[in-house]
C-alpha cells in the first residue's frame, strides 16, 4: 500500500496494482443542462437488465424513483424551488439570455414550432420558481469505502479506476451499504446481493460509452477521461459564473476532498444536500488506523482487567 492508500490524492488503478493502466475514466454530470427526461435511468436499466424498483408515486415531485438503490443505478432528482428559497444569487441567467437580442430588433415569427409556452413573450420575466434536475450515480470514489470494507473481494478496482461488484462473489454481507458516504450501493431484497453502477464496465472496455451517457440528449452526462472532464468542468463553471449564474459550483471534482475526488462528479446549482448529496463526505477508512489502535488499547485493557481480577484478591 502506498502512503495515500487510505486518504489523499491518488491515481487509484496503479495503486490497486495495475501496470500500464489506461487513463482513469469517469462521468461529469452537468446539472445545468439536465432536462429531467430520465433517459439515463431507462438506458441504464435496459443495458444492465436491472429489475424494476417498484411502481410507486412518491407524491413529492416528478421523481418517483426516490434515490439510488440496488435497482436504480441512475436517479434523476427533481427539486422545485420557490425563488425566495434559492441558495445563490438572484440573477436569472435564462431570462438574461432571452434578452440578448440587440435593442430595437424584435424576434420574428418564422412559423416554426415553438419550444416555449404558447403565448409567452420571449423577454417575459421568469416565473417565481425553478426546477433543479440532477442525474445522480455512483461516484466511483478515489478512496472507495465500499471497496475497502468488502470482506470477500467481490468489489474490485478496474483498470479504468472504477469500482465494480462481482455478482458471482458477493455473498450479501451488506457491509458496503452503510460504508458508502453517498448512500449509493444497496442490497437487492429478493436476491440478497449488493448492486450498483459499474460505469458500464462491459461497454467501456470495448470503447463504447456507458449507456446513460449515450442516451443523454443534452450532454448533461459526459463520459471521458477524468482529467479532461475536470478541465471541461472548470471551464463550464467559469462560463456560467461569468453569465451570472453565481450559484454554479462543482461537486466531487477535487482530489483533495474527503474521498480523494470522485470518478463521477457534478456541476450543481445549489448546495449538495438539496440534491440529497452529503455536503462534506469523508471516506470512513481514513480513520481506520486510529480505530484499530483504539481497539488494540481496549483489548490490552481487557487482558489487564482479567489478570487483575484473578490475581488481585483473596477469594
Amino acid at each position: 500500500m502506498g502512503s495515500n492508500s487510505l486518504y489523499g490524492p491518488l491515481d487509484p488503478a496503479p495503486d490497486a496494482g495495475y501496470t500500464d493502466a489506461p487513463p482513469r475514466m469517469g462521468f461529469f454530470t452537468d446539472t445545468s443542462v439536465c432536462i429531467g427526461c430520465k433517459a439515463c435511468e431507462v438506458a441504464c436499466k435496459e443495458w444492465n437488465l436491472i429489475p424494476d424498483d417498484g411502481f410507486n408515486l412518491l407524491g413529492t415531485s416528478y421523481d418517483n424513483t426516490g434515490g439510488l438503490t440496488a435497482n436504480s443505478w441512475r436517479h434523476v432528482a427533481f427539486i422545485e424551488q420557490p425563488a425566495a428559497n434559492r441558495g445563490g444569487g438572484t440573477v436569472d441567467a435564462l431570462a438574461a439570455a432571452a434578452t440578448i437580442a440587440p435593442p430595437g430588433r424584435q424576434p420574428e415569427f418564422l412559423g416554426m414550432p415553438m419550444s416555449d409556452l404558447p403565448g409567452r413573450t420571449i423577454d417575459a420575466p421568469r416565473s417565481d420558481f425553478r426546477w433543479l434536475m440532477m442525474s445522480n450515480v455512483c461516484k466511483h470514489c478515489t478512496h472507495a469505502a465500499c471497496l475497502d470494507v468488502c470482506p470477500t473481494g467481490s468489489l474490485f478496482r478496474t483498470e479504468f479506476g472504477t469500482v465494480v461488484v462481482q455478482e458471482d462473489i458477493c455473498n450479501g454481507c451488506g457491509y458496503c451499504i452503510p460504508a458508502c458516504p453517498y448512500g449509493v450501493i444497496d442490497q437487492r431484497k429478493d436476491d440478497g446481493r449488493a448492486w450498483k453502477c459499474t460505469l458500464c464496465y462491459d461497454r467501456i472496455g470495448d470503447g463504447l460509452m456507458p449507456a446513460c451517457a449515450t442516451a443523454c440528449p443534452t450532454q448533461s452526462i459526459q463520459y471521458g477521461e477524468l482529467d479532461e472532464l475536470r478541465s471541461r468542468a472548470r471551464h463550464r463553471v467559469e462560463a456560467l459564473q461569468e453569465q451570472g449564474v453565481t450559484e454554479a459550483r462543482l461537486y466531487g471534482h477535487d482530489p483533495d476532498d474527503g474521498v480523494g475526488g470522485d470518478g463521477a462528479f457534478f456541476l450543481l446549482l445549489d448546495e449538495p444536500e438539496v440534491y440529497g448529496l452529503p455536503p462534506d463526505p469523508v471516506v470512513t477508512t481514513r480513520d481506520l488506523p486510529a480505530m484499530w489502535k483504539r481497539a488494540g488499547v481496549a483489548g490490552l485493557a481487557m487482558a489487564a482487567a482479567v489478570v487483575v481480577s484473578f490475581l488481585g484478591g483473596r477469594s
Partner: protein
Amino acid sequence: MVPPADFRSYYGRPVVKAPVWHHDIAAYLFTGGLAAGSALLAAGGDATGRPALRRAGRVTALGALAASTYFLIHDLGRPARFHHMLRVAKPTSPMSMGTWILSAFGAAAGVSAVAEAAPLLPGRGPLGLARTVLPPLGTAGQYGAAVLAPALATYTAVLLADTATPSWHAAYPELPWVFAGSALASGAGVGLLAAPCAQAGPARRLATLGAALELYGAHRVETTKGLLSEPYTQGRAGRLLRAGRALTAAGVAGAYLGRRSRVISGLSGLSLLTASLCTRFGIFDGGVASAKDPRYTVVPQRARLAARSQASTDVSGEKTEEGPAIAGQ
C-alpha cells in the same frame, strides 16, 4: 460550535443508507462478546485452580461461538456463500479481519470445550487415547482462545465504526471501551451464574472492571458527540442503553452484596448478561436511527465545512475567492 438549527435535504430523504443488517448482527455483538469474556474466564479460572470457572467458561464460549456463527451466516443475503469470506484477508475490512479472528478463536475454543468431555470417555481403545490427548490440547486451545479473545471482543467496535453511519463513526474512539467492558461483564456474569460463591471472587472483580469500562465508554458516546450523541439517548436505543446501565449497576451491586448467596450471585450474573445484551442492541439501534435521518449526516458535515472556512478565514485574514462558490473546499 453550535450547529445550524435548520438544514436542507432532498424531501427529507436520508443521505446515507441505513445498514441492511438485521438484529442478527446486534445479537452477534452480544454473543461474540460473551464468547470472548467466557474464554478469558476459563483461562483465568484454569490458571488459578478454579475448575468451576474453567468449565463454565469453556462451555459457554463454545455455545456463544455457535450462536455467533449462526447469526452471522443467517444475516447474509446469500448464506450459502458464507465461505466467500475466506477468499481474502483484508486489513481494510474489519469484517474480513473479524472472520479470521472468529475462525481461529472458534478452533481453539472448540477444542477446549470438547476437552471438558474427556473424563467421560472410556479408559481403553482409541477413545482412551483421546482421553489422554484431549486435556493438554484443551488447555492449549483454552489459552489460545484467551489470547484471541480481546481481539474478538473489540474488533466489532471497529466493524460498526468503519461505516458512514453517522453515530457509529463518530463514536469510534470510545466504542471499543463499551464493547470490551460489555464482553468482560458478560463473561463475569457467566462466572457468577455457574461458580459456587467460593470460586466467584474473580468474576465479581471482573464484573466491576468490565462495568467501569462499559459505563465510561457509553457515557462518552452519549454525551461528547454533540448532535450525534442524540440517537443514543432517545427512542428505543435510549431506552435500551438506560436499561443496560441500570442492569449493569444492579449486577455489580448484587455480586458484592450477595456474595455469600448463590441465588443472589446468580441473579446478579443474569443481570449482567441482560445488561450486555441491552447495551449491544442500544448501540446498534442508535446507529441505524442516525442513518435514517438526514439531519445527522448534513448538519455535522455543514458544521465541519463552516469550521474549515472559518479557519481559512482566520489564517488568510479574508475569505478566499472561490470558497463559497465551490462545494467541498
